[in-house]
């Protein structure tokens, strides 16, 4: 195989710069959406940084994800306005429907559920955003429709 892996490219780019581990890990996550074990291992080998240190960094910062997120990222706003307007119940409904917790992905890697603090359109509260598409005035009853919409969309993409 002649193709150079992403981790190798990233390692080559940052190897000589001291203190650049975080930048390298950012680049991996930008492309892959998370930092897989294999990539972290390769970065360790090729940048000469112990893997143990890399995981200290990866688990210190909330930003880094160690597991593949779902394809559709559901952001439930729990900012003040959305929360008061009942988004906590919407969040519960998502958790129940998907059978996952906050910050987790479904085992089939279809959905990822996360909370965000204000997406800047409080007039539409309560608000959810799925992969950039905004849903306003959401009620727990809408949850199933939103999920179905994205299921068929993701299925289409697959085909």
């Amino acid at each position, binding site marked *: 195989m002649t193709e150079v892996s992403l981790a190798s490219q990233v390692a080559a780019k940052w190897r000589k710069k001291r203190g650049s581990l975080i930048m390298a890990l950012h680049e991996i996550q930008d492309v892959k959406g998370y930092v897989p074990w294999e990539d972290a291992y390769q970065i360790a080998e090729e940048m000469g940084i*112990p*893997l143990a240190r890399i*995981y200290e960094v990866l*688990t*210190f910062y909330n930003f880094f994800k160690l597991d593949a997120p779902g394809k559709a990222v559901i952001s439930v706003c729990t900012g003040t306005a959305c929360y008061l307007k009942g988004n906590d119940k919407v969040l519960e409904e998502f958790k129940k429907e998907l059978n996952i917790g906050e910050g987790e992905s479904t085992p089939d890697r279809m959905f990822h559920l996360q909370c965000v603090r204000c997406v800047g359109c409080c007039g539409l509260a309560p608000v959810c955003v799925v992969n950039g598409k905004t849903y306003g005035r959401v009620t727990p009853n809408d949850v199933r429709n939103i999920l179905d919409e994205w299921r068929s969309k993701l299925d289409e993409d697959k085909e």
Partner: protein
Amino acid sequence: MVKLKIDNYEVEVPAGTSILEAARTVQIDIPTLCKHPDVDPSAGCGICIVKVNGRILRSCCTPVAEGMEIITSDPEIVNVRRTVLELILSNHPNECLTCIRSGHCELQDLSNTFGISQSRLPSLNKKFEKDESTKAIVLDPSKCIVCGRCVEVCQNQQNVWALSYLNRGLATRVTAAGGIPLAESPCIKCGQCSAHCPTGAIVEYDETQKVWAMLNDPELVTVVQIAPAVRVAIGEEFGYDFGENLTGKTYAALRRLGFKKIFDTNFGADLTIIEEASEFVKRFTTAPEQLPLITSCCPAWVDLMEKYHQDMIPHFSTCKSPQAMVGAMAKTYYAEKMGIDPAKIRVISIMPCTAKKWEIVRSEDMKSSGYQDVDVSLTTRELARMIKQSGINFRELAEEEADSPLGEYTGAGTIFGTTGGVMTAALRTAYFYVTGEELENIEFKDIEGLEGIKESEIDIKGNKVRIAVAHGTGNVETVLQKLRDAKANGEELPYHFIEVMACRGGCVAGGGQPRVMMPGQPKPRGITDDIRRKRAQGLLNEDLQAKERRSHHNQSIKTLYAEYLGTPGEGKAHKLLHTHYVARPKYQR
């Protein structure tokens, strides 16, 4: 020099000294949990606070300054310390009764010292699954106070990088990378983490029950061997001073525990020397390209080499460790000689080491007798536990002798337990093998002591033999790099013979040695250079007083070769006493 006042005592110490250390010069032990003499200050625990000109600061990481006025203890300071302790305890289980560390625990000791009798704070302690994956050390994150001593030692002193911090804040845990089991990490089982842990968070994998069962099975012939370093440390568990050599009492205790025969790993050490010195002489005289020869009796070092320094495999001595050799001899030579079915023999070894538990199952070579050569490897701490359980009054025991023939040893065998000892023992015999004459001066002062890397040159009848001794695996890299550079540049080899022990000070300071808190011992407790020196001295003194100080003078070993093994390094000796090494991945994932 800097002049200051500590609790109204005038103190003069070199610039750069921490307040914590300066206070010791006026007999004040400022309590601390995270600052250990082997590690840099991390300002982690917050117990060591003092008042500097009225301000509260951490004494471990505050250097002295001219004219400072320091108060190390007043009601306010004691109050703060007590609160910090309560906070630590709010994230620590109240399990002292069932904790292996109870009685020797630094946290428990401090808690008693500060009179903490109840917890005001709600417990935030989370139960985590214990990591017993290595079957050598056990890591229980619930008992960890995240002082960082183990991480510091694993990463910097040992340069192994198995342990690390996971997550942050209250969720911080000490684990292998990303929370994987230790057995899948580069962990070499040296146990230095456990030697430095102030609580019961990292302890030995206890196998005493297994041994009790064997001892109580009348069908079995259960025999035992004790490592050199055990005899100068076991006494600490019974109120003796550091380094007191208690070989005879230990034999007596073992016999009372029910072991049928008492052997000595020192016999195995002498045997190792015969094989290793022969191997060295062979390489030195006929195959110089295979030099340097690197010692391999330390299993943690073998593990490290197989994971991190695979280019060095051809330089490794193929000799098994003394522990493994005694095991192999017990189930072949001894079994035959005594007419015992080797299937019924159980060999237990008492080691200062947690990695020895891994060594006995590390490869098929460890079954050279047709059975597992050593069945269970216990640490010094586990043996002490067994002696206490059985009610034996260790201090009152009369000294006894080991059993023949796997119990006889020379002074060269006993110094295996300290840094420089294996090299010293090997040179005594190698000199004889090369020249046919006995070496006059058989002590090598250059390679004694706690300097991390020691070098010397020995003249063997006109042949210069350059040697290096490294201990604490963090020091190995420097020696190996020198070697690699010389090879790459086509220069003359910097060394012909290298001794490596994974733990600082050698086996006397191994991960399985007692962690008893003695009244006179400065805080923080745990292994220190002072203890390392005292235990080493216990072995060196035994060598000085030994009738025979050269392995090739061990009569039982001469008989063993004449009756059974034949020539060193060949035939039976090769099959039973040698092993081979394979490159292993750092991570099993």
